């Protein structure tokens, strides 16, 4: 299997896994929508690479229930078809992470 085929298989499997998790009630419809859109952004459309960095930073930080909830709600409400909405929401998340981490996000 060449790299492209492997990548394609990974994409299909991941997308199916997300949709399956929603079907079984493990994630909500809105969460599924966000995760699938994120997958498309990373593997097909190659837009908003800074989003992945932000998500990594978020998962690396100490959990904070209140802020985590706000970040999650911000993420699931992103409209990926509207670049202004995406950028505005990413800025919000950066601010929240800087509050959570105690320093501005670089």
């Amino acid at each position, binding site marked *: 299997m060449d790299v492209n085929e492997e990548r394609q298989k990974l*994409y*299909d499997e991941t997308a*199916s896994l997300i949709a*399956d998790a929603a*079907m079984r009630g493990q994630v909500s419809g809105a969460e599924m*929508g966000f995760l699938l859109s994120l997958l498309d952004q990373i593997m*097909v459309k190659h837009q908003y690479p800074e989003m992945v960095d932000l998500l990594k930073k978020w998962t690396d930080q100490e959990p904070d229930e209140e802020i985590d909830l706000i970040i999650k709600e911000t993420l699931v409400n992103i409209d990926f078809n509207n670049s202004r909405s995406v950028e505005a929401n990413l800025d919000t998340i950066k601010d929240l992470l800087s509050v959570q981490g105690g320093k501005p996000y670089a």
Partner: protein
Amino acid sequence: MVKARAKSQVPEETLFDLESEYRVLSSMLHSEEACIEAYDQLSISDFYSPHNGNVFAMICNLYERDLRPTYVELLKEGHSLGVLTSPADIEQLKYIALQYIDDQNIKYWIKRVKDKSRLRRYEDFLRISYQSLAEQKDVDVEQVLMEAEEKLTNLTALEIDDHVDSPSEMAALGYDEVERRFLRYKEIKELHKGVLPLDGLTTGFNTLDNITLGYKPGDLIILGAQTGHGKTAFALHTARAIAVEQQKNILYLNTEMSRQQIALRWGSILSSIEHDRIRKGDINESELSIILNAYSRLRESGFYSYPCPNLTPEKSISIARKFKVQHNIEMMIVDYVGRMEKFDPRQPEWQVLEQIVKTQKMLAQNLNIAVMVLVQLNPDGTLQGARRMKNECDLMLKLAPIPKEELEENPDLKNFRNPNYYLIIEKNRDGISGKGIPIVFDQQRQTMKDAERT
């Protein structure tokens, strides 16, 4: 019993081919080219499996909404429509997504799906005819055979969408057209006081509008000019009249200019500030503000630009189909065909041009849009393969400078204010031809207009 016997005689694999259906659907998810081709060639009823037909409908629906139909978008669409009700449904979609083929082979797989669909219709015809024969007591042989022949003709000679006009349909169509024109003429006289409503899109020149009644859907318009004599300016003048002034959607394919060059030209056309100065940046602050205002008009327009140095006739078809589906374009302008890649590099130039022009005429008719093709004239003002091109097109125009001697000596031209170019109507399928319309072409501002009468 009859029905069962008739069905059992045809092996199942003859009537459907699920693999081909999966391959087509999968490539629609992976390649835009495949998506355009399948969207154009197939319909839901061509799929044997109702599930595959539904997947096809969902992909087409996404595509029409200008959403790239990826596997992820398909899952989201399926979820929002409530058609994914069990993990098995997701498995089935995943199975389809994994049947990817190289999109070079898409035509082969579409043909297989289409052929099976036609075979099923043929089998339906045989089965129903057999059943009907078995049930009739007094058979009217002539009637039965006539009906069978008509159905069979529909299957063999005509696609479902094709339509043969009966004498009464043709008469009704003719009367409707005459009535529509009669009412329009009355309306002009009573309401508009002489302002001419057009049959198609405005040409951007009052005189040409009066002669042609506009560029009509299905029309192929050819505009010829020598190098440096306003081909692109004419194209953008047309685009301005239709997409900016009337806000109708058009697609502009340019084979030799970059995105930046096209964008800069618009700055000059819409602001009336000299193109050279805009290019150099030699403008003052108030002019900058005028230009900014001009671009806001472009932002609100229906102008879609596709710079494409490696344009081929096939690619132009594919792009036009895409924009017709997604943006309902009413016109496509190809600037210009001399730069199109050849079907076959061994062919002589005139044959290449003839083929391209034929393709564009078919495209105009199939998509019901006007297509304008720009061609380059030889230094002596002639056009290679002109006669053949003339046969194919509905309107052939030439743009040429008015010679200095003619400007001085032709008394007719004295009736116009500052004409410097002729827009010559070489052919006009629906009206007069052989006429030169004096126009003013401002090369600095890249604008054109009818020369005003003094």
